[in-house]
């Protein structure tokens, strides 16, 4: 009966929930720790594949191996062609895409502020860094269905083969409605209902390009 008495005291529900929380938090922490290496490995793999896919077309035309074959040869193809540049070479993580001694492209890991949080993207440029080969937004916290659509290929695809430098100065892009088609090379179709996010992508591109170019100019 002593236990019965304790269970009826007002403090019992509080202690019960605290104890239950501790048990489950412990279980979750242990689960996460056990699987952390696996999750990290998967993340790294996705990241490296994303870099490879951005410059796979350039690699294909240089090597004569088809794009799908290069992708299928991961991780060997990544090790063969893509070399991380030493830290400090650029203010962002940078990778050099090389076939033999020929540099085919550079890939930069850029970051910027979105509407709800930090966005991270990979951007591949030509060796002269004046033209974008491809861009891939791999991490963002934008509104699902609206801003989050900046990840979609119709949006990122617009930047492919775009000249981003005009006499050493980053080009100003202009946003046009999603339904229109671009008449000028500097026009980008924005995501409907996500003007701030669309602008944020352009701002990120400009800021980060400037950062990279400053390094270039200082050399």
């Amino acid at each position, binding site marked *: 009966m002593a236990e019965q008495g304790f269970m009826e005291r007002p403090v019992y529900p509080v202690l*019960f929930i605290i104890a239950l929380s501790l048990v489950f938090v412990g279980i979750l922490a242990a689960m996460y720790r056990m699987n952390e290496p696996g999750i990290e490995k998967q993340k790294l793999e996705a990241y490296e594949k994303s870099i490879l896919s951005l410059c796979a077309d350039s690699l294909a035309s240089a090597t004569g191996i088809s794009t799908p074959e290069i992708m299928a040869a991961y991780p060997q193809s990544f090790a063969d062609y893509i070399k991380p540049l030493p830290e400090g070479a650029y203010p962002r993580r940078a990778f050099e895409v090389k076939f033999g001694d020929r540099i085919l492209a550079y890939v930069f890991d850029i970051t910027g502020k979105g509407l709800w949080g930090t966005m991270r993207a990979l951007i591949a440029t030509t060796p002269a860094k004046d033209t974008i080969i491809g861009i891939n937004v791999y991490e963002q916290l934008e509104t699902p269905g609206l801003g989050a659509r900046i990840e979609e290929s119709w949006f990122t695809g617009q930047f492919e083969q775009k000249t981003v430098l005009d006499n050493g100065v980053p080009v100003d892009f202009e946003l046009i409605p999603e339904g229109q088609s671009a008449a000028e090379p500097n026009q980008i179709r924005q995501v409907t209902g996500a003007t701030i996010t669309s602008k944020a992508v352009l701002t990120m591109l400009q800021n980060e390009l400037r950062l990279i170019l400053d390094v270039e100019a200082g050399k």
Partner: protein
Amino acid sequence: MNRKEIFLVSAFRENSVWKQVLGICSALAVTNLMLNSLIMGLGFTFALALSSLTTSLIRNYTPRSVRMIAQTLIIASYVIIVDILLKAYLPEISKQLGPYVGLIITNCILMGRLEAFASKNPPLDSFIDGIGAGAGYTLVLLVIAFFRELFGFGSLFGIRILGVWWTNWSIMVMAPSAFFLLAMLIWIINKRYYKLG
């Protein structure tokens, strides 16, 4: 009620989706591919069965005033475990399912089964009930996904079934198709097995 009956009742006769009309959101959201539906159903069944078992094990010690907080805590923990496992072993599917795995927490079927069954019945029966309800839910997801993937992509589990002559119905890929497929499913089952309307 013996255990076989518990399973049959919660999986079919009192099916959470077509009889109790619970868990509709996720039934609409993840059913455009068979594989996603299957993984979602398995994750859901796992979380529900173990939540039922746990809730039932501690039912005599759970104060009435905080029972729902405790149930939510238990459900959330198991769902996070499912999420961690998917991220570690099936990252592609984890990415496609996106927020819906986490949203299992808010699925009414879980709370409903814990409150209606697990908090009043012995552990093993509750476990069976959880598996039953999970199987019933998975069955509905798979039936809807079967039609959506077949007509929307011409494939099943990613394997091409219909020939090149088939024109994909893009409505089947989008959410609205799940609305009328689910409605038709509920209608047919009610008409045939419950003799309603």
